C-alpha cells in the first residue's frame, strides 16, 4: 500500500507545534472593529426597553431592525432569531451587537434592558411543546412481553455536557465585493453560507465563508458559528469595516450549545436463559428554546436506543421538547451517548435480575451478520458486535475480575456499543455532496468543504487519494476550505468525512488514474491541459429508507465498539478512580492508525469526563459554573492508561473498507463506568457519577 494503513504525519502538525498556525483570533484586518454580544439576563419574557448611549461613544450598534434579510438563523425549523426582537426565550439570548475599534472598550459598553419577566419552563418533563417526535416499531411488543419470563424496568438520566473545544468560538467578517467574507472557526462552511444569505438578504455569490485553522469543534461548531457569523456580518455591513467577534470562555460556555440532557425509560422482556423478547423504550430530550438540530439528535438517539441487540418486538418513542434554556445541539455522538448509556446500564441490571454475568447476557443477544435492527435493516458481514465484545472481555479477563470484585470497592464494567456512520436515513442523498480532484504536476489537489478540526480529515483524505492514484502522500495537496473555491461536500459531522467524502474522492481518483493511463501527471497536463474531476455522492445499491415510518436502512452501516473500565472507589471521599480503560473498536479500516488511535483516545477521555466529572449547574436557566475552574474536564492526572485495540472488518462500500470513526469512542465510557460502579457495589442510574451520588448509591441504600 502507498499510504492507506500508514501512520502518515498530519499535514497540519508542523505549523501547530511551531505556533505559526493562525487561528481566527490571531488574525487582524486593517481598520478592524471588535464586537461583543449583549445578551438577555432573563430566561423568559419580553423586552420593554433598551437604553444606551453607545453610538455617541463611538460604538456601532446592531439591533434586529438592522437585519436586511430575515431575522432567522436558517437550519431545520427556522424558529431561532438572529437577534431577539422583543421576546426572550432563553437566558443569554442575543439582543444587540456592539462594535468598537478597541477590544477593551467592549466591556465598558453599558446597556440597560428593561424586561417583563415570565416564569421560565425549565423542566423538560413538564414541557408540552414537542419539536420532534419519532416512533420506531418492529414486530408486536405485546407478544414479546407475553413470551417473557421477567420484565425489567429502569429509568436513566443524563445531563448537559459542554463541548469545550479549547479554542473559543470566533469569526471575522470582512465587507467585500458588495457582500461579506467570513473567516471563522467552524465545522460547516456551507451551513454558515446558507444562513448568511437568508439573514443578509444576499445572493450566494456575495457571501464567502473561509475556514480559519480551527481549535476543535466536537459538534459545538456545527450550527452555532452561523449565529456568530451573522452577528459579525451585520456589524461589518453597518460599519463598513471588518469586525472580529471572538467569545471569551465564560460567554462561550454560558451561551452556546451543549449535549442534550435526556431521560430514558426502558421496559424489557427477557427469558430466564437471557434472551430479550421485547423492548419498550421512551426517550425524552431537552432541546432548549429553539429547534436547532434537535430533530436529528432525537432521531439518532432513538435509533441507537436498543443497543446492538437482537429483538423481534420493539417500540421506541423519542421526543425532543422545548424549555427556556439556551438551545442544546450537536456534540460528538449526537444523541447516541445518552441512549446507549441507558441501554448498557439497563443491560447490567437485567443481568443482575437474571443472576447471569454481563458478558453472557450480551453474548446471547448481540447482533450477528444477517440480524435485523429495530428499523428492519439487515446487518451486513461487517457487523462485528460479537468480535469486539469477545476481544475486550478476553483481553481484560472480564469475567474473572467481575466475579472477584463484586462489592469490594473495586469494579470492572463493560459496555457494548454501535454507531451509525454518516447522515441518518436519506440524509446523505439529500445532501448530494460533491468533491473535486484537480491534477497537478506531481499529483493532485483535493477540493472539498470538509474541515480539519484536529480529527485528521486533511491528512486522511489525501491518503485515500494517494493510495488510489498510487503516488506518494506528499504529492497530494488540499485546497483551502473556502466556499468561493470548493464544492459543497457537506458538513463535517456525523463521522461521515472519511467514509462518505473519502469515498467520493476515491471515485474521482479512480477516474483520474484511468484518464492518465501510462502518462505522468506532467505529461498529461502538457498534452491535454488542466484536468478537474468532480463527483457526487451515490447511495449504495439496494439501500432503502422510509422516513415516515422509520423503516429500512437507517445508516449505511455501523461501527462497533466495546469498552471495559476498571476502577476503584475511594472509601473516604467516594471518588471513583479509573485504573484502566480498554477500548476495542472496529471501524472497517484504520486509514491512518496513529490518528485513529488518537481519535479513540480522545473520545474515550471525553467519555470519562462525561461519566465522572462534567456537570453543568443551572440557576434559573443560566449556567452557573461557566468557567474552566469549576467545570472540570480530565487532565493528564485524571486519565488512566488507555488500551486501544483496532479491529478491521471491512465495509464493502467504504473506501478501503473504512467506516465512520470519530464519534463511536464517546458512546462507551460512561456506561462502562456506571457498570463498573455497580460491580463495586454502587447502584447509579444517572450521569455524572460524582462522589456525592456515589455515596448515596452505597450498597443497600437503593
Amino acid at each position, binding site marked *: 500500500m502507498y499510504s492507506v494503513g500508514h501512520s502518515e504525519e498530519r499535514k497540519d502538525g508542523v505549523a501547530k507545534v511551531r505556533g505559526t498556525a493562525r487561528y481566527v483570533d490571531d488574525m487582524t484586518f486593517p481598520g478592524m472593529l471588535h464586537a461583543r454580544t449583549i445578551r438577555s439576563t432573563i430566561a423568559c419574557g419580553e423586552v420593554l426597553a433598551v437604553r444606551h448611549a453607545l453610538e455617541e461613544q463611538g460604538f456601532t450598534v446592531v439591533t434586529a431592525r438592522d437585519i436586511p434579510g430575515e431575522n432567522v438563523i436558517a437550519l431545520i425549523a427556522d424558529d431561532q432569531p438572529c437577534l431577539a426582537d422583543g421576546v426572550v426565550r432563553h437566558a443569554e439570548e442575543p439582543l444587540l451587537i456592539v462594535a468598537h475599534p478597541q477590544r477593551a472598550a467592549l466591556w465598558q459598553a453599558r446597556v440597560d434592558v428593561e424586561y417583563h419577566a415570565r416564569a421560565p419552563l425549565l423542566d423538560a418533563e413538564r414541557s408540552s411543546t414537542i419539536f420532534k417526535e419519532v416512533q420506531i416499531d418492529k414486530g408486536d411488543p405485546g407478544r414479546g412481553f407475553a413470551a417473557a419470563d421477567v420484565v425489567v424496568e429502569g429509568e436513566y438520566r443524563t445531563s448537559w455536557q459542554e463541548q*469545550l473545544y479549547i479554542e473559543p468560538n470566533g469569526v471575522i467578517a470582512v465587507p467585500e465585493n458588495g457582500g461579506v467574507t467570513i473567516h471563522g472557526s467552524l465545522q460547516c462552511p456551507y451551513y454558515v453560507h446558507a444562513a448568511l444569505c437568508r439573514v443578509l438578504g444576499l445572493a450566494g455569490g456575495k457571501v464567502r465563508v473561509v475556514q480559519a485553522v480551527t481549535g476543535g469543534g466536537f459538534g459545538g461548531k456545527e450550527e452555532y458559528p452561523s449565529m456568530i457569523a451573522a452577528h459579525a456580518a451585520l456589524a461589518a455591513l453597518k460599519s463598513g469595516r471588518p469586525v472580529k467577534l471572538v467569545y471569551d470562555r465564560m460567554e462561550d460556555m454560558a451561551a452556546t450549545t451543549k449535549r442534550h440532557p435526556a431521560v430514558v425509560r426502558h421496559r424489557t422482556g427477557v427469558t430466564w436463559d437471557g434472551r430479550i423478547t421485547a423492548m419498550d423504550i421512551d426517550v425524552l430530550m431537552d432541546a432548549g428554546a429553539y429547534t436547532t438540530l434537535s430533530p436529528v439528535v432525537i432521531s439518532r438517539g432513538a435509533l441507537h436506543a436498543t443497543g446492538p441487540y437482537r429483538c423481534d418486538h420493539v417500540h421506541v418513542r423519542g421526543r425532543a421538547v422545548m424549555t427556556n434554556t439556551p438551545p442544546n445541539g450537536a456534540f460528538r455522538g449526537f444523541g447516541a451517548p445518552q441512549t446507549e448509556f441507558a441501554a448498557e446500564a439497563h443491560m447490567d441490571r437485567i443481568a443482575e435480575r437474571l443472576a447471569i454475568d454481563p458478558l453472557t447476557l450480551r453474548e446471547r443477544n448481540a447482533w450477528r451478520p444477517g440480524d435485523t435492527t429495530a428499523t428492519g435493516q439487515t446487518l451486513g458481514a461487517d457487523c462485528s458486535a460479537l468480535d469486539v465484545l469477545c476481544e475486550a472481555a478476553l483481553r481484560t479477563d472480564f469475567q474473572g475480575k467481575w466475579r472477584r470484585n463484586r462489592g469490594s470497592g473495586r469494579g470492572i464494567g463493560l459496555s457494548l456499543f454501535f454507531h451509525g456512520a454518516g447522515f441518518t436515513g436519506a440524509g446523505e442523498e439529500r445532501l448530494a455532496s460533491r468533491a473535486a480532484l484537480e491534477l497537478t504536476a506531481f499529483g493532485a489537489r483535493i477540493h472539498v468543504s470538509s474541515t480539519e478540526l484536529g480529527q485528521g480529515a486533511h491528512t486522511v483524505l489525501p491518503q485515500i487519494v494517494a493510495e488510489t492514484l498510487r503516488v506518494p502522500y506528499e504529492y497530494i495537496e488540499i485546497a483551502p476550505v473556502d466556499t468561493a473555491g470548493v464544492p459543497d461536500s457537506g458538513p463535517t459531522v456525523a463521522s461521515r468525512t472519511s467514509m462518505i467524502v473519502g469515498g467520493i474522492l476515491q471515485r474521482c481518483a479512480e477516474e483520474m488514474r484511468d484518464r492518465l493511463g501510462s502518462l505522468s501527471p506532467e505529461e498529461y497536463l502538457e498534452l491535454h491541459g488542466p484536468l478537474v474531476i468532480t463527483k457526487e455522492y451515490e447511495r449504495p445499491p439496494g439501500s432503502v429508507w422510509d422516513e415516515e415510518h422509520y423503516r429500512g436502512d437507517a445508516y449505511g452501516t455501523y461501527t462497533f465498539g466495546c469498552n471495559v473500565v476498571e476502577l476503584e472507589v475511594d472509601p473516604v471521599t467516594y471518588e471513583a478512580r479509573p485504573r484502566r480503560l480498554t477500548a476495542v473498536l472496529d471501524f472497517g479500516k484504520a486509514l491512518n492508525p496513529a490518528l485513529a488511535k*488518537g481519535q479513540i*483516545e480522545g473520545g474515550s477521555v471525553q467519555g470519562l469526563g462525561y461519566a465522572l466529572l462534567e456537570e453543568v449547574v443551572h440557576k434559573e436557566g443560566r449556567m452557573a459554573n461557566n468557567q*474552566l475552574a469549576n467545570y472540570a474536564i480530565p487532565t493528564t492526572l485524571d486519565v488512566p492508561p488507555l488500551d486501544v485495540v483496532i479491529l478491521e472488518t471491512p465495509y464493502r462500500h467504504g473506501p478501503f473498507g473504512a467506516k465512520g470513526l470519530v464519534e463511536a469512542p464517546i458512546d462507551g465510557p460512561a456506561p462502562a463506568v456506571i457498570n463498573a460502579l455497580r460491580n463495586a457495589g454502587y447502584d447509579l442510574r444517572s450521569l455524572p457519577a460524582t462522589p456525592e451520588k456515589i455515596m448515596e448509591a452505597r450498597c443497600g441504600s437503593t
Partner: protein
Amino acid sequence: MSEERGFSRRKFLQGVGAGALAAGAMPDLARGAEAPEDAPDLAGPGPVPVTLDVNGVRTTIEVEPRVTLLDALRSRLDITGAKKVCDHGACGACTVLLDGRPVYACSMLAIAAQGKKIETVESLAPGGELNAVQQAFVAHDGLQCGFCTSGFVLASEALLRQNPRPSHEEVLEALSGNLCRCGSYQGIKKASGAAPGGG
C-alpha cells in the same frame, strides 16, 4: 521582531491618539497591529512604557499597567503562539517561559515581566527546524486541533531542560496544569517522555 519596529509602533500610537479611532478609515497596518487595548479614552491610570525581552529581542511598548503579558504579546507584539482560552489561569494554553520557568501569561501583568527573559513557542524553531520537543510532538501525534499545543510544548520543554530524564510521574505532574480537550494526552505524554532534554 526588531527594535526598530517597536519604535515605529510606539511613534504610531503617539500619533494616533483618540481622534483617529473615531475616524472611518484606519491606516493599513501590518497584520497583528490592532488598536491598542489601553487606549487613552478609557478609564485607568494611562499607559506606561514597558520593556519586554521576548525571544531575544527587547521591545518597549506603551501599555496600561493592568494589561496582561498575554495581551501584550498577542495584541501589541503580534506574537500569537500563546493562546487565550480561559484568561483565568486554568488551562495553560497561554504558557510562556519566564527565565526558563513555565508561567501562565494570562495571569501575569506585562509590567511584571520586565527584566525577565520571555520565551514563546515561536522561539523554539527560529529557522524553521523543529527542536527536539516539537519533533517528538509531531512524531508521537501529541496534538489534534493544536490550540493547546504551544502550551504543552513549552511545559514539556521547561521540564526537560531542568530534568532531562523525568519519571512518568514527573511528566504527568509537569503537564497537569495544561488542558487538552481533544484528549491527546497519550501522545503528549509519549512526546514529553521521548524527547531528549534540553530541546
